[in-house]
Each structure stands twice: as structure tokens, then as C-alpha cells.
């Protein structure tokens, strides 16, 4: 159930808070995009370069690049997931609903752990 209207200035203040929450999440999107973008750009360019010009990338870099790329994408995904959970909590509270982010955080962290186990399993399978 949502709270009844509480006067024009309070309602306008709620709208400003919602806009502030929106801007906070867009900032997190930008930060995560920078991290994930770095990972994706590194993976794509090194992969394309390696296939077209074999041997031109130092073996140490060629071996390290996918791990750095995956780590950057993973950190970006982790931060963005936490930001989404925080945003949902803030907007629910604005609507006058009691909201505890604990369950959502637990779900998000559980999802990330499952994803990490899946990724580790894939690495092991590929390595053998």
C-alpha cells in the first residue's frame, strides 16, 4: 500500500529524491560501463589482433589478457548488481513501502556466487 499525498512541497521533494536516485544509478552505470568496457575492449582487440597477426602479441600479455578482461567485467557486474539493489530499496522507501534490502542483497550475492562457480567450472573444463 502506498502513502497518501502529503502536501505539494513534500510531493515535490519526493520527486526530487527520485530524480537523485535515478542520477545515482546512472553514475553507477557509467562507472560499471567503464570497467566492463575496458574488459570487453581488451578481450576483443587482443583476440582480433592475435588471430590476424599471430605472434605479434607477447605470449605473457596474450595469456594474461583474458583474465584481466574477465576480472574487469566481473567487478563491473558485481558493482552494478549492488547499485540496482540499492536503487530498488531507495525507490520503494519513497513510495512509502517498508523495504529491507537484505533479502535482495542476499539474492544478488547468491546469484554472483553461482555465476562465479559456473565461471570457475568453465575455466577448469576448458583447461583440460
Amino acid at each position, binding site marked *: 500500500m*502506498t502513502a497518501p*499525498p502529503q502536501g*505539494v*512541497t513534500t*510531493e*515535490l*521533494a*519526493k*520527486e*526530487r529524491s*527520485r*530524480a*537523485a*536516485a*535515478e*542520477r545515482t*544509478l*546512472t*553514475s*553507477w*552505470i*557509467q562507472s*560499471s*560501463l*567503464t570497467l*566492463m*568496457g575496458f*574488459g*570487453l*575492449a581488451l*578481450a*576483443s*582487440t587482443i*583476440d*582480433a*589482433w592475435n*588471430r*590476424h*597477426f599471430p605472434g605479434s602479441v607477447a605470449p605473457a600479455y596474450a595469456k594474461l589478457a*583474458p583474465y584481466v*578482461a*574477465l576480472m574487469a*567485467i566481473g567487478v*563491473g*557486474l558485481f558493482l*552494478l*548488481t549492488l*547499485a*540496482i539493489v540499492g*536503487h*530498488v530499496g531507495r*525507490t520503494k522507501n*519513497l*513510495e512509502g513501502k517498508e523495504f529491507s534490502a537484505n533479502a535482495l542483497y542476499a539474492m544478488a550475492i547468491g546469484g554472483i556466487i553461482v*555465476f562465479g562457480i559456473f*565461471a570457475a567450472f*568453465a*575455466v577448469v573444463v*576448458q*583447461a583440460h
Partner: protein
Amino acid sequence: MESPPTNVQAELAKERNRAAAERTLMAWIRTCLSLISFGFGIDSIVRAIQERSQAGIDTTRFSGVLGLALVGLGTYAMIVSASEHAKELRYITRPEGYVYRQRRSLALTVAVCLVCIGVLAFVAILFRWL
């Protein structure tokens, strides 16, 4: 001639809301610019490498799909945020009182889409490289 405002506090609050809406739109412009330029950039770099190569193998598919998804997401977000901004300005200036409306968050939609794109890219890199 417009009648003078009766509630100074409410009028000042409306002005703050207008400024907040403007800052939100600017935040969206920066975000969409990042999405579009990154999507376009990654595809261009990989295509440039492809054109200079004699190997005859196609490495543009992954970066092409990724670039298209990001450009599409950035364009969608820009259109929707501009439309929401216009609606919000109209809602603030209407003569009736102001009531906060619950509505779907565009930032949430874009963030969830970006998480999906990130997970797909992560899995693609994992199986392609390792």
C-alpha cells in the same frame, strides 16, 4: 497575464524540481553518450584490424553484436529519458496540485539490460579464450 503564485514555497520547490530534472537529463546524456560511443568504438577498432589483415578470418561477429546492443540500448535510453523529461516539465507546470507518481525507472531498465549484456559477454569470452 499570469496570476501571481499564491504559495511561494511550492513555487520555489517546483523550480528546484525543474533544475533536478535538468540534471537528470544531463546525466542521461552522459550515460547514453558513453554507451553509444563505446558500442561504436569497439566495432570500429575490430573492423579496422580486420581490414588490415591478410588472414581471411572473420573476428567482427562478437564485437558487431556487442556494439549493436550497446548502441541500441543507448539510443533507447536517450529517447525515453528525453520523453520523460518533457512529461515531467509539463506535470510540474500544470495548475492543479502536484502528487508524486510511482512509475517504472528507466535507470533500472538500462542497468538490468547492461547486466544481461555483461553476463553474455563474460560467458562468450570465457568459452572463446580460456
